């Protein structure tokens, strides 16, 4: 998860979990209702209060408009109609999609690094793994501080490095169009470790015999990579891609921490979640609620799309 909230949301992938068969009927007629209440009720009460009920309530809110004193009035579809014509929202959706697309570019990179890490006989693999994983555990708000300095237009290290090869770099985080790329690079830097670990675990599951046979047939490493590793890894690649899309749609922490609220480019760079946050902060709760519903629809559509498309490229053995 880039962000931590993102991470929590990002784990919405029960798809990867093979559900073992329920042991129903093992003991016919037995019901543990009494114990089940003790075991499940505390959790379910919290889930119902803090999640299920709010989801319903948010839907209601999205049809209301809020006054300055917390009073609300039913306005029907007004918020949605306004959203449909809201250029800022349109821009925020495009930014979110663009950001997610850039984040997805980190997946092939992770596959490549994972394949290097899984080389037989490679030493210090654990050390490399730790290094790659470090950004994933770091607090986004805190590590953004140093990235702001690296990206600084006047004294940043990045522009200094570019100047050495004769390029005059921009002020990365306050230039429209450039800022989103700069944020996405940090997003990739953070998520690489997570993707690497998942993909690396997937690679460990590929039988060594396949490589041995291929190598006896004279297949090069690259050939083995493209004909054995990648096809057999598609379930893990799919899982990582779904997680990346969910994380991409949730981008907030990095935008907030890297760019700041006073940044002249933030209006043109913000994501849908950022726009949601601004509306909450200005008290436009009904509008924010409608944005929440739109995010839900977007995530739903793209997750569905990915599951549809997976049939075309994911190989399950």
């Amino acid at each position, binding site marked *: 998860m880039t962000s931590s909230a993102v991470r929590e949301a990002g784990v919405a992938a029960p798809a990867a979990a093979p559900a073992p068969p329920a042991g129903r009927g093992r003991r016919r007629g037995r019901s543990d209702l009494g114990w089940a209440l003790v075991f499940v009720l505390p959790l379910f009460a919290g889930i119902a209060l803090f999640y299920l009920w709010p989801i319903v309530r948010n839907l209601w809110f999205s049809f209301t408009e809020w006054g300055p004193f917390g009073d609300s009035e039913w306005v029907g579809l007004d918020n949605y109609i306004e959203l449909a014509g809201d250029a800022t929202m349109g821009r925020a959706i495009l930014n979110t999609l663009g950001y997610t697309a850039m984040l997805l570019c980190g997946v092939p990179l992770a596959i490549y690094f994972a394949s290097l890490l899984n080389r037989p006989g490679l030493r210090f693999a654990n050390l490399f793994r730790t290094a790659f994983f*470090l950004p994933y555990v770091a607090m986004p708000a805190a590590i953004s501080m140093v990235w702001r300095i690296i990206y600084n237009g006047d004294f940043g290290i990045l522009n200094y490095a570019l100047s050495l090869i004769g390029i005059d770099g921009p002020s990365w985080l306050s230039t429209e169009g450039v800022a989103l790329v700069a944020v996405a690079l940090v997003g990739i830097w953070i998520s690489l470790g997570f993707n690497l670990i998942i993909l690396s675990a997937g690679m460990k599951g590929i039988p060594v015999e396949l490589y041995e046979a291929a190598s006896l047939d004279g297949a090069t490493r690259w050939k083995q990579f493209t004909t054995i590793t990648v096809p057999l890894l598609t379930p893990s690649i799919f899982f990582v891609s779904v997680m990346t899309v969910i994380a991409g749609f949730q981008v907030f922490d990095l935008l907030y921490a890297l760019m700041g609220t006073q940044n002249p480019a933030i209006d043109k760079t913000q994501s849908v979640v950022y726009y949601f946050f601004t509306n909450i902060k200005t008290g436009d709760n009904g509008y924010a609620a409608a944005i929440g519903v739109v995010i839900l629809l977007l995530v739903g559509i793209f997750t569905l799309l990915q599951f549809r498309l997976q049939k075309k490229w994911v190989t399950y053995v």
Partner: protein
Amino acid sequence: MSKRRVGARESNTIAYVVLTIGSVVMIFPFAWQLIMSLGTNADVISVPPSFWPSEFKPENYLNVFDRVPFLSQFWVSVGITVIRTVGQLVLCSMAGYAFARMYFPFKGVVLALILAILMVPPQVYLLPQYQIIQGLGWLNTVIGIAAPGIFSAFGTFMMRQFFMGLPPELEEAARLDGANQFQIFWKIMLPLAKPGLSALAIITVLWSWNDLLWPLIVATSAESMPLSAGIATLTSGRTITDYPMLLAAAMMAMAPVLILFLIMQRRVIDGVAFSGLK
């Protein structure tokens, strides 16, 4: 034959080179932040960039305590992390066990309702959650920030998957010995569930410590914010002047989790991989 072996060794050399460059890119921001947090403002903004302080100023770290309510923010972070982690371990393991091993009416419906939350982005329930916390009078309190995160659909799902993978024979044997459900859970299943529990704990600690959006909404006063929100608001609004002090503050904010990770890196990585695969 020998040619092939040479070839293999050569490409492993390339692997070392690429992995080393990758690792340096990964670690560089941390290292540079640590070094510059001990330097002067002139060091940070110097062109060409400096990679060593012209003068060591460890007092940057002390200045943080004067400029930011760092200690109270630290305790807020610790509080919400502990409350959420302990809460999730207790509630999710119990519910997960019940969903994996007990039989009761509407089990499937209840589980489906919980799992449905995994599909819903946080923004959909954030605003009503805020109202509930407000209604309870918990705005700007540790329990208010921690509360919704105590109840985790993901944790429940993960623990359920884990318990389903454990052999039912153990449980049957205990039942024959006259143990009740709670004794079976507490004495037999829970000790076996340690890998699952530690993975859940790791995920929850990471997510709680670094969480930003929700604390920014629930906590408005600087003293009641966790470190994540404290650091973010410190740097987001005004123009930054004292870079080394800010770098020191950011360093201290992420240090507890980084140190924990470096000590238990194997476990953390396995835990995260586990949570992704289960």
